[in-house]
């Protein structure tokens, strides 16, 4: 736990002003000291400008270290641009649903960032600063009940129709009313879009809330859902059975993004070409090609051979080798994903769950199983999400304490518990074995049950009672946007048990529910921080729901000549295509 002496604040302030600290360091230290977002933002503004402009973070293995001027620039500051204007990215699976207001998976959202746009996007690595996307400017009133967006005046959809305020409103009405996939990103704030979204003029749009909404901008920057689709295309392709033309949008792309789809083969590849009528500065790459490469080893070979220029789906074992390859850069970053082991609430009492949390092999899992692609965390909220409370202690392995708590819980030596995981899941299998070994040391038997992935999913998301479920199952989650409620509600609220959500172990704590319901309607950031802290304390210490073992670190591999890539902990595995470029070599 960080001690909060005044000199820490001073050191942070001076470091930021002098440019000694990077934006990431300012952010991390600010959060640790419990500063509010506005305070951190002002510090970031004071921070040195070395990371401005979306430049790539120092790659861990790029050969450009120590260069002056900065990579890609000449002595006059001009960028040395490559003539190769194709960027090929490898995905690990196809993207069957191309409707951005329906698709709810990671690869789809990564693809959408090439061709669709939100109103605003998260800026660089920050999880609470924004930059323009379709909206050039935005503002809100003092009580956070009205949010005004000024759109790019010349924005057009790929079908040639104008993207004005009416079109954006129509797109949001579709998103809310269609009620598919990620629609709760909008429904939490806008229940009646026809009334709540007001078109002021051709380029001005106002979202009117029914109460103060401190997280509305965060939701608007989510890559899940609030992407703007062409209402003209919807009108043209809608049918009586499909009034929002979902079936058509599931196979076609008409957005306002910097790239326009020219070839769509959902299980093979997507080819995008630069959109000539793009409303902002044209991106560097002429084409973005997304290839579906299912096999892990093939993706690695494609990266190493230079055939593919970027990939976010590389095994940790391969990453360790690729770090040493001077032709590649491995950009590592902390995500907002937290992974945990669900504990069966009906079968294990609070003391037992605390005991098991002490028996978990935290360090071994992070070092040996995750290969360093994770760090200890004190609950389900990552340290870059609003509401993270560094004052909450983090569990560490303590078998004596575990034994004491398990004994107090009525568990005797020789008692058997079950840990279920999917056949072929090497990570889960390794973690389970390490946990099993720890428990064996205190006389507890952990039975490992491997089941087919389908059966595991059915068990997790089905309606079987908790008594028929194992004692332990793994899970992981990251929020759709910077929101602690969005992270915890589907996983731990009693409204989300069984098939109603992801609360697969039937966690049901009345106090937790009460605080969560308050958190949902919190009207200020301070309230969110306060409530999240209390909730996380319940989830981890008072009445543990799970063993929160790591905040996940990810890596994106790029060819060494790629610049402008900035990872973001919320846009996991995505690429800011519009900022990226290739340096001439």
């Amino acid at each position, binding site marked *: 736990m960080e001690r909060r002496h005044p000199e820490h604040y001073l050191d942070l302030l001076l470091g930021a002003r002098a440019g000694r600290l990077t934006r990431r360091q300012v952010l991390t230290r600010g959060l640790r000291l419990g500063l509010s977002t506005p305070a951190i933002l002002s510090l970031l503004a004071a921070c040195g400008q070395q990371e401005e402009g979306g430049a790539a973070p120092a790659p861990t293995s790029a050969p450009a270290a120590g260069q002056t001027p900065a990579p890609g620039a000449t002595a006059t500051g001009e960028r040395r641009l490559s003539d190769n204007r194709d960027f090929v990215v490898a995905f690990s699976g196809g993207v069957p649903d191309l409707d951005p207001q329906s698709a*709810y998976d990671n690869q789809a959202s990564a693809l959408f960032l090439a061709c669709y746009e939100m109103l605003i996007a998260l800026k660089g690595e920050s999880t609470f600063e924004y930059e323009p996307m379709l909206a050039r400017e935005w503002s809100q009133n003092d009580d956070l009940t009205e949010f005004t967006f000024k759109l790019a005046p010349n924005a057009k959809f790929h079908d040639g129709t104008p993207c004005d305020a009416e079109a954006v409103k129509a797109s949001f009405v579709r998103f809310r009313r269609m009620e598919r996939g990620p*629609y709760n990103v909008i429904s939490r704030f806008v229940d009646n879009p026809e009334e709540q979204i007001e078109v002021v003029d051709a380029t001005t749009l106002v979202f009117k809330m029914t109460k103060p909404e401190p997280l509305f901008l965060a939701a608007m920057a989510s890559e899940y859902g609030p992407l703007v689709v062409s209402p003209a295309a919807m009108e043209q392709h809608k049918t009586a059975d499909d009034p929002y033309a979902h079936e058509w949008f599931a196979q076609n792309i008409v957005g306002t993004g910097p790239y326009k789809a020219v070839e769509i083969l959902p299980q093979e590849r997507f080819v995008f070409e630069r959109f000539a009528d793009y409303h902002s500065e044209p991106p560097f790459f002429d084409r973005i090609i997304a*290839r579906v490469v299912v*096999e892990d080893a*093939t993706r690695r*070979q494609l990266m190493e051979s230079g055939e593919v220029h970027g990939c976010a789906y590389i095994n940790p074992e391969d990453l360790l080798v690729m770090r040493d390859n001077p032709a590649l850069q491995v950009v590592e970053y902390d995500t907002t994903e937290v992974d945990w082991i669900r504990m069966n609430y009906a079968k294990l009492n609070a003391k037992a769950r605390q005991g098991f949390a002490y028996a978990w092999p935290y360090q071994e899992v992070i070092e040996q199983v995750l290969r360093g692609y994770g760090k200890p965390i004190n609950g389900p909220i990552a340290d870059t999400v609003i509401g993270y409370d560094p004052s909450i202690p983090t569990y560490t392995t303590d078998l004596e304490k575990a034994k004491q708590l398990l004994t107090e819980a009525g568990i005797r030596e020789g008692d058997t518990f079950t840990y279920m995981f999917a056949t072929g899941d090497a990570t889960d299998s390794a973690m389970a074995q390490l946990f099993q070994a720890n428990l064996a040391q205190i006389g507890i038997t952990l039975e490992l049950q491997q089941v087919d992935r389908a059966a595991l999913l*059915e068990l997790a998301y089905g309606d079987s009672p908790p008594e028929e479920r194992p004692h332990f199952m793994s899970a992981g989650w990251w929020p759709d946007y910077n929101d602690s409620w969005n992270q915890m509600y589907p996983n731990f609220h009693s409204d989300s048990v069984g098939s109603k959500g992801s609360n697969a172990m039937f966690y049901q704590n009345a106090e937790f529910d009460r605080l969560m319901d308050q958190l949902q309607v919190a009207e200020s950031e301070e309230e969110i921080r306060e409530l999240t802290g209390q909730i996380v304390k319940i989830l981890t210490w008072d009445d543990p729901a799970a063993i929160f073992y790591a905040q996940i670190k990810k890596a994106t591999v790029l060819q060494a000549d790629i610049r402008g890539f900035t990872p973001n902990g919320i846009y996991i595995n995505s690429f800011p295509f519009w900022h990226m470029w290739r340096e001439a070599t």
Partner: protein
Amino acid sequence: MVLHLIIRRLFFLVFVLLGLSLITFTLSHVVPSDPARMIAGPRASPEAVEKIRKDYGLDRPLHEQYIRYMAGVIRLDFGESLSSRRPVNQDLKRYLPATVELTLYAMLFAVVAGIPLGVLSAVKRNSLLDGITRTISVLGLSIPSFWLALMLQFVLFAQLGLLPDGQRLPIGVKEPPTITTLYTVDALLSGQFGLFLTALKHLAMPAFVLGFGSLAIVTRMVRSGMLEVLGQDYIRTARAKGLEQKTVVIRHALKNALLPAVTVIGLQIGLLLGGAVLVEIIFSWPGIGRYAFTAIQNFDYNAVISVTLIIGFAYVTVNLLVDIAYVLLDPRIRVT
């Protein structure tokens, strides 16, 4: 007689396909799974999942789902794929030709290389050549195709850059006009020789890997058949008549030794059609094997059953062709 054979086999084919569909449908639904949840994703709300379930008719009783599906199959409508969100027909139209072309080239390689190797190995029994051929046969039977695929990809693509990593054509290269749906054939028919060579280059590695196991089997079958035939009296007689070795081997021995090999070749085509999954995954080959893999992962019942039916149909048809070939190759065989 041959016509009688064809009619009878086609009659039985209906029952084979019906049985296949029933077994596949039952097995698919016995596995506890929720395709609607898979489509919606783990984050989707229960309402969103329910909407998908209703849209795709997954909320109806099982027997009703099966009857609806089979009624569609009779009209050659395989329903909609849950994972690609398109009609399965449309998917099969795209992916099946890729697998057929890959299988044909794999088989072509196995036959063109396997028969001469088998013949030479038998004729030069216990020679160095025979030893090499037998080693190749053992390797072909024992090396797992995924390992061979990864190794070849590593050496020929990643290290030497001699062949592309996979796919039917490079990105950006226009497909030939559709005539037969086989790229190499269509490229030749439309006079695009360069495109033919490009497509052939892309086929080389996956076809070699897929055909390597069959090559081993064909070689062994031909070798053993030839060894048996070469010891027959009529071969000795032919030699005694002063016929050239080439004539004895090709005209007299090979024709008879090929009979068992024909059966194996037929069976191999069926096996390769259904067994190209790993090769297609590693080489990013857009065939029905890869399609089936994705479908299975997503509990895409319509796609899984359709692929099973297609492969079953192909298998039965190839067997029928083998039987016909048997009759034509050996007039002593009577259709019963």
